[in-house]
Structures are given as C-alpha cells and as structure tokens.
C-alpha cells in the first residue's frame, strides 16, 4: 500500500555502467512487470532498488521518503530457493515477521493465514529438503506476504518450474494480489508471463540498461493465453525486445 518513485537511477560496477538514468513510478497496489533480455542487469536493478547495492546517482522514494529497509516493509522473492534449510516451513514463514518484531498474537494469526493462502497447512513442520521445488517457492511467497509488505519484489520466481505448475502459481499470485492489494514489481524474461499477469509492463534494454518502453496492459483479468488480443500484445512486447 505504497507509491514508489525512482528518479535518474544510475549505477556502474567499476567502469562498466549497468543502470543508465532510469526513472519511473509505481502507484499504490500496482502490478508492474519488468521484461528484458537476459543479462540486462535486472537483478542489479532490483538490488539497487532496495539499497542492497549502493547506487552511484539518483533517488528512490517510497511514499515520498528515501527508501530505508528498517522503516519500509519490503519483501524480496528470488529465483534461487531462499528458504533456510535449518528452519521448518513454519519457522521460515515467521522469519520475516520476527525480524519486524510482530506481536505474538499477530505472528500466529498471520502464520495460519498465509499457510492457508498457499495451501501448505499440512507441511508446517517439514524441513525444506523434504519439499518439491514448487512448494519451496510457495514458502518464499508465504514468507513475503506474511509481513504485509509495502512493496513486493519478485525476481523470476517461477523460472525453474514446469509449465502447468507455473500457470497454477501465476493464477494464485494474481488472486493473492487482488486480495491484499500489495504493490508488486515482478521481473521476468518470459514475455507470456509478463503479459498474463501485469497491470503495467516496462521493457528494459540491454546493458547499459535504459527504460525502452513503459505502458499499461489493458487486457481484462482473468486472461486467456490463446485469445487473439493476448497474442497480439505478446507479439508487440516481443518485437520491443527482439533478443529471440
């Protein structure tokens, strides 16, 4: 439930300029999908957004204030499995809430809620090594939504999953997003996924990364992959990238 403003974000590793004067806004409750060729610095972009990397120039504001990990509640879901193998599913989910010092009562209530949300009630006491890939990703999603984030960053979370599983998790994410109205920034290389889920689509160029195109996705929800208009939108985005 927050507005994100990025003005003239630039970053370079040594002499190599990675992010080149990127400016955009994400309104409250928006679902922004960022698409770009592999190796166009998407992960660097996300990490710079939350000051995990220090940036050379530009500013990032959440609800008007400079982004600060302690003040703002931000959740980050990555492609690599970020569940902690020494914690059970329940402890993993509570990790974020404990860091943000939720009250005991709220902690338990939220844990039940998100476990039900991703359908993992039965697996609360399992260890990550006993779970399949899609269940692990669900744990990360539950952990992220548990802290009621102002901003949810997702870096190709479904990159490794089978096709039918990916469809299912995409629908699930849209449902949760509609329920919680969280602002989501979702990065992917898969254009179909971006067109299927986004309210707005932003296309990045190759390094040094610039914003090539930023437009609203008019298709009504729920969308169908084989619809005429869907394929047309998908081709439009593909031509913008043309890495393939």
């Amino acid at each position, binding site marked *: 439930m927050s507005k994100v403003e990025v003005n003239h974000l630039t970053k370079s590793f040594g002499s190599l300029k990675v992010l080149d004067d990127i400016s955009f806004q994400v309104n409250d409750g928006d679902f922004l999908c960022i698409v770009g060729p592999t190796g166009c610095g998407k992960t660097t972009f996300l990490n710079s957004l939350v000051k995990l990397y220090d940036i050379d120039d530009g500013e990032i504001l959440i609800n008007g204030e400079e982004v600060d990990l302690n003040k703002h509640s931000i959740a980050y879901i990555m492609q690599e499995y970020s569940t902690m193998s020494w914690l059970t599913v329940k402890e993993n989910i509570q990790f974020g809430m404990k860091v943000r010092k939720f009250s005991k009562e709220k902690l338990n209530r939220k844990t039940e809620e998100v476990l039900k949300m991703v359908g993992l009630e039965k697996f609360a006491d399992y260890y990550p090594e006993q779970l*399949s890939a899609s269940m692990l990703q669900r744990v990360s999603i539950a952990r992220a939504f548990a802290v009621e984030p102002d901003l949810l960053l997702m870096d190709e979370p479904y990159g490794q999953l*089978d096709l039918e599983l990916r469809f299912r998790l995409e629908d699930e994410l849209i449902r949760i997003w509609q329920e919680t109205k969280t602002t989501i920034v979702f990065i992917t290389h898969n254009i179909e996924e971006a067109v299927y889920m986004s309210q707005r689509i932003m296309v990045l160029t190759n390094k040094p990364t610039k914003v090539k195109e930023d437009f609203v996705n008019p298709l009504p929800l729920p969308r169908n992959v084989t619809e005429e208009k869907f394929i047309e939108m998908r081709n439009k985005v593909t031509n913008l990238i043309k890495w*393939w």
Partner: protein
Amino acid sequence: MISCKHVSKTFENNGQKNEVLKDISLEVAENEFVVILGPGQCGKTTLVNIMAGLDHETAGSVTVNGKQVDGPAPERGVVYQKTALFPWLTVEGNVGFGPKMAGLPKKERKEKAKHYIDLVGLSGFEKSYPIKLSGGMRQRVGIARAYCNNPSVLLMDEPFGHLDAQTRYLMQEEVERIWSQDKRTVVFITNNIEEALYLADRIILLSNCPTTVRNEFKIDLPRPRDYISPEFLKLREEISKHVETTE
C-alpha cells in the same frame, strides 16, 4: 528400432514395494524423433536407464534393432540432465572418450572428435575444461560425446532441465539443427510441453506415478517450428489439458 513391450518396474527398499513403471509399451521407428512427456520426476529416468541397459525391468521386454537389451552398449548413447561430463578431461578428451574405450588409435580418435565438436559448434574449445564452460556449452559437449560413439539410438534425459530459459530455447534450436544434419533415432525425455512440441515427430504422454502411457500425439507441423504461431499455441493448450500436475 526400439520396442518396449509391457515394461514395468518396481523398486523394493527394506520391504516396501514401490511400483514406478506399469505396463509401458511403445515403439520408436528408425530415425524418428520421439519425445516422452511426463510430469515431475516419477519414472522417466528409470525408463531411460532401462532402455540404456543401466537398469533392468522387473517385467516385460525391451529390444533395440531386434536384440534384447541386457547391459549398456555403445549402440545406445545417453545425454544426461547434469551433463555428466568428466571434469578432468578437456572437451576433446570427453568427446573422444567412447572411441578411446573401444581402442581406436589416437589420430583417428582426434579426427572423429574434431568432426563432432564442429557439428555442435564448439570448435576452438577443444582444450578447455568443463568447469570453464557455460551450461549450454556443456550440454553441447554431452551431445557431441554421445554422437561420437556413433550410436544408432540417442537417449536424452531432460538435457535442458537446468538451463536458464533463453539458453534453453537456443539449445532446442541447436538439437533441431544437429538432428537434421545427422539423423539418428532419438528418444527425448522432458517435462516441458513447449520443448516437446518444438522437437517431436511424435509425443508419448506419460501419467503420474505409477507411470503408464496415457496417449500419443502425432505432430506434423513443418520444421523448424515457431513458438508463437497460433497452431503451436493451440496444440500446446490441447496437450496441457491432458498433463496431470504433480504435487
């Protein structure tokens, strides 16, 4: 070329019977590119190991070129998901490993290896070690190594499972190109519908555990196929309806 008749396999660990394959019968004709599509992990690799001769079926029979399969033989080449390259051998060493085991003289081995390294587009990388190659390049070495033993049948067990999406698309095109230049009978295993549709003459759909053959789809789209053509997407939609999800 390859025919499995009522093949089934049950694993037994400390008293507990676990039936993985149940009554699988399939035929693969000469130089046909057959894709075995199945959800998740159940049974596909076991079927490949049985066809390769590394594992034995508990019931039914598997014959290649009419001969019963009872152990690994150079006539059947395998490409693995984790590439299974020998880390201590260079690209040339890996590709030439089969002929070396067969006792071919060094000069002849080098030529053979060179031919297949060029076929998969890795000329210039003969002397590098696998640890320095990218995922896609390692898969190419795996394919070259299998080809270099000139097998009549090529078994590919989810070779692109670990690659990132863009390399995966490129590798699918690579396999298409290599196969059209040097036709072999191919049995390609995957859980990705798009990959199956892009490569297969025929798709055999397997069910969830215990694995049986659900149905077959004859794919006669012209090659090379286009991922976002309307017919491709329609076929994909149709097939994905039959695929059971794993949980």
